């Protein structure tokens, strides 16, 4: 059948598909970013079970309810998972080698029940490590407000 009939490679054309989506980040993430501009870390809390979401989420899946209470959390937390990245993903989807490996960690802030994934400064990381958020309140891009985490002490 067709699959094996062709001997020469099929000609390829690049067909761009570049849809642009106009999301708002939503009130919850807006609160989160606005808080960090003032150096505050704000999570959302489920009024039913008390779980605290950071980054803030709108809905608690366990209670099937709006998580619409707000709590200010400390900048400190604990590494729950970590990886040393030897690569990064290029825009074409290839994994390309990083000149200097970097640590990516999932951090649970003290008082939170969910994790933020961010870069961890330094070369070593382990689960259970105590870390603190490096905030950058003056950042132009809201995504840079939480620059990274750094080991404590």
């Amino acid at each position, binding site marked *: 059948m067709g*699959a094996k009939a062709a001997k020469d*490679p099929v000609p390829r054309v690049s*067909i761009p598909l570049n849809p642009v989506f106009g999301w708002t980040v939503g009130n919850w993430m807006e609160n989160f970013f606005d808080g960090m501009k003032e150096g505050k870390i704000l999570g959302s809390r489920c009024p039913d079970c008390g779980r605290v979401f950071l980054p803030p989420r709108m809905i608690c899946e366990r209670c099937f309810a709006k998580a619409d209470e707000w709590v200010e959390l400390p900048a400190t937390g604990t590494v729950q*998972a970590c*990886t040393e990245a030897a690569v990064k993903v290029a825009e074409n*989807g290839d994994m390309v080698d990083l000149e200097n490996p970097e640590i990516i960690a999932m951090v649970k802030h003290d008082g939170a*029940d969910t994790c933020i*994934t961010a870069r961890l400064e330094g070369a070593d990381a382990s689960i259970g490590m105590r870390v603190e958020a490096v905030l950058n309140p003056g950042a132009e891009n809201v995504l840079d407000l939480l620059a990274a985490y750094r080991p404590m002490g």
Partner: protein
Amino acid sequence: MEKEAAIIGYAQTPYEADSNCSRELLVLQATRAALEAAGLKREDLDTIVTANNDYLDGRTISNMRLVEPAGSWRKNESKVEMDGAFALLYALTRILSGDHDIALVVAESQASVYGGILPGIMMLDPTFDRQRWLLNEVSGAALQASAYMDASGVSEEQIAGVAAKNLDNAAGNPLALRSLPGADAAKVMASRPLYSPIRDLMMAPLCDGACALVLASGKAAAKAEKPVWIKGVGFAHDSYLTERPLESMNSLKLAAGSCYAQAGIEDAASQIDLAEVHERFAHEELMSYEALGFCGPLQGGAFFDSGATRMDGKLPVNASGGAMGANVDCGAGLARVIEAAMQVRGDAGKHQAKGVKTALAHGQTGICAQENIVYVLGGE
């Protein structure tokens, strides 16, 4: 579930880095071969479910041009934008409704067409995780592996050993894209580091391919040769990856529990003869041993070390090579069902395990296996 629906035919195309043909011809190759295997014609089909993905196919409503090769012209057809193992669930519910006797399920994608692991990044929370460009399917899996290793004490060498087992098994599977006969953990540990502990050979290779399966009602299957009965199915969904404990596959455990209740499985390790699990990363196979009840919580490494899941063990896992041999997006889970059915029939050729009467197949979708589905299959 007792003799209500059976697999009566299936086919897979070879899995290749570049199939060098259109997805329509890939699908036609799989569907015609599956129908021929079932001894049926297009006219016999009552309902069709395709598994494909708009993003992967680079178009919206990507099943639109599958009308022709899926055999669905002027027929009852729908699409599942997930793994084909979930499309099979949809087909099964249609058969169980009593309205249909013959269903065709077909899954396809071509990694040579879409940009590597970019589609996985599009699954992430768009307002934060995606923008920060740190998480993707591989780094997410690496974070899960780190949490699992910390909780269980499993080592990188044990994870590498799983990959080596499957790549060695894949040498017996003529359709596999990647195989390494005689591979050992050291060989896997020497492959390119990606996100620790994950190295290139611990990650299932994305590829081009299609697979198709014909499902029949009990009444229609009674006339078929060597029907493989669906004894049970279970499926469950968990939270987003940063909002759940990562060291265990809780939705797989729930899926297995409801599947086993239907299939009458009380002790999976002794009642299941073989399993095909959808391990997109090698550590997921160890975690699946636990979630599927083959061993106790956090005992996956020890269970692997016992040799039970090797080809000659008491419960071979991924005799086909699993997804380590070929991981076609949308199709690798359905391929696990097909491979499990082949084993029950004794039709697996060079990778046939001995004495398989009851087999388990697993499929998954989402980062860090957020959603899981489990089938138990049996012969006469």
